[in-house]
């Protein structure tokens, strides 16, 4: 059962990463359009800035969730790893549980923020202000789910998720 949930989780994490990658790539031509509009059309597009910031939120929270599953977030592991395995396991378990709670809290608070600001448009953009909080809502949900799966897998003694598609450390 948990192995099945884990497979669903893997798909979900891929989807998160895919959306984040598409959002990142979309940023590039938009900034190009900004320059083009300013010089060639002599009419700067005013929607680019606000839209870019929304996409940036999508990249950030998409990756934040996906990297929770693959455990690729920047962390200081050497202290934990210097403890004997049973203690280390407890520390890891606590991390997963706390993160599950944090993600859920983030999703709930961001749901409230989304609803509270839905009726008002983002300045210079005709979409609701609440859209800016959706990435946190969905990302928080992802963080909660992936952390919960990690914790459950530890409880039933399944092996750790291997970082998927990780080819070396991220650039810092």
């Amino acid at each position: 059962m948990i192995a099945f949930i884990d497979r669903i989780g893997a798909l979900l994490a891929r989807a998160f990463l895919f959306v984040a990658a598409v959002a990142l790539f979309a940023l590039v031509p938009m900034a190009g359009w900004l320059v083009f509009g300013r010089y060639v059309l002599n009419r700067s597009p005013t929607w680019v800035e606000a839209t870019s910031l929304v996409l940036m939120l999508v990249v950030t929270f998409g990756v934040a969730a996906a990297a929770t599953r693959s455990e690729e977030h920047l962390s200081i592991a050497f202290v934990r790893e210097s403890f004997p395995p049973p203690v280390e396991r407890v520390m890891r378990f606590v991390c997963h549980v706390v993160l599950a709670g944090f993600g859920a809290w983030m999703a709930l608070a961001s749901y409230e923020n989304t609803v509270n600001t839905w009726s008002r448009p983002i300045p210079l953009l005709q979409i609701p202000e609440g859209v800016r909080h959706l990435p946190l809502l969905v990302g928080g949900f992802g963080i909660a789910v992936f952390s919960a799966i990690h914790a459950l897998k530890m409880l039933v003694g399944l092996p750790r998720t291997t970082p998927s598609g990780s080819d070396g450390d991220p650039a810092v």
Partner: protein
Amino acid sequence: METGLILLLGVFAVGLFIGMPVAFAMGVAALAAFVQADFPATTMFRRVAQGVSAFSLLAIPFFIFAGELMLHGGIAQRLVRFATALVGHVRGGLGVVNVLSSMLFGGISGSAVADTSALGTILIPVMKREGYRADYAVNVTVTSSIAGIVIPPSHNMILFAVAAGGGISISKLFLAGVVPGILMCLCLAVAAWLVALRHGYRAEPFPGVRAVLVAALVSIPGLFTAVIIVGGVLSGIFTVTESGAIGAIYALLVTLLVYRELTWAGFVAAVTRAAKTTGLVMILVGCATAFAYMLAFYSVPTRLAELMLTISDNPIVLLLLINVMLLVAGMVMDMAALILITTPIFLPIATQIGLDPIQFGILLMMNLGLGLCTPPVGACLFVGCAIGGVRIEKAVATIWPFYIAILVALLLTTYVPAVSLWLPGLVFG
């Protein structure tokens, strides 16, 4: 100390201790403090969102993406070939080549870890094959990769400008990094050369002026990425943010049309890795914004500054103190998080003792960059050792000449303001 402040710092410390991701250790600590101080959680998570939504931060994905494209599209390799042709005939020349390549590539990528992985995968195997010791190859690669942070463009500098409250000109900051970056590379080149002499490495044969020219010619389209980014900003065509995007578009065109080395798989890898890196840095930025909110609420920056000024009011002592504290912090924590945490604390002290915020920014970059090459936590060191197949303790045992070289550059930049401030002063007056 107030309960909320104890909670903020305590939860953060415990989180780090048990290996929680740094971003979430900050986030969880901030959330605990928010709730304790009777702030709604909605405020907290709006701060997180707000931290990510700064227009100037958009330059970060662009620079990272451009760097990834250069790595996957053959630009980085050509820069190495050019550098090898140029100085490979010097005794211990591959060490010097390594430093020079970092200077050239780092001038574009802006990321020390990208630099280590891009150049390390090309250079470390070559050096080993030519009879260089693996630990030497790793040490040179790792330490010279700091150039990527100091030589513009550098997304870490943008993080600093944002953390400083947005009053700092990013293009001045970029220009200020040029001389210290080159200075650092010179010091490292000297160290690489001296160590090479001691080990008795031989030189590569000189390939001839023709070969140097050919290598230069071939690498020009790639090098032009840097010209577009820096030149576009200085001439007023783009803002810094836009220059990153234009640089990425240009790099894409060069690798697709000129070098024709970018495969679909390479492109997907470049986009995905850029998204990942961006996301991992930005979630740090977001959580650090909420963390900083509570630090400000408890007036921590002011209180710490007052404390430090009671220790000494001598600028030289204080600067040394700041350098040491940053170095120690850099040993155990990663760069982006440290920029966000330490800037609001140390910058007011630095300006109070008469330091230019721009000079302070460069010092911050160099200090924290050195931290990337030190155990126990050093992303560059880890990547370099992994590529070179060297144990970390073995690499560290022979790295000290390179640390000294960086320290020399760091002290010069600390106590001679002109090193960093001369060039921006020249251009912007």
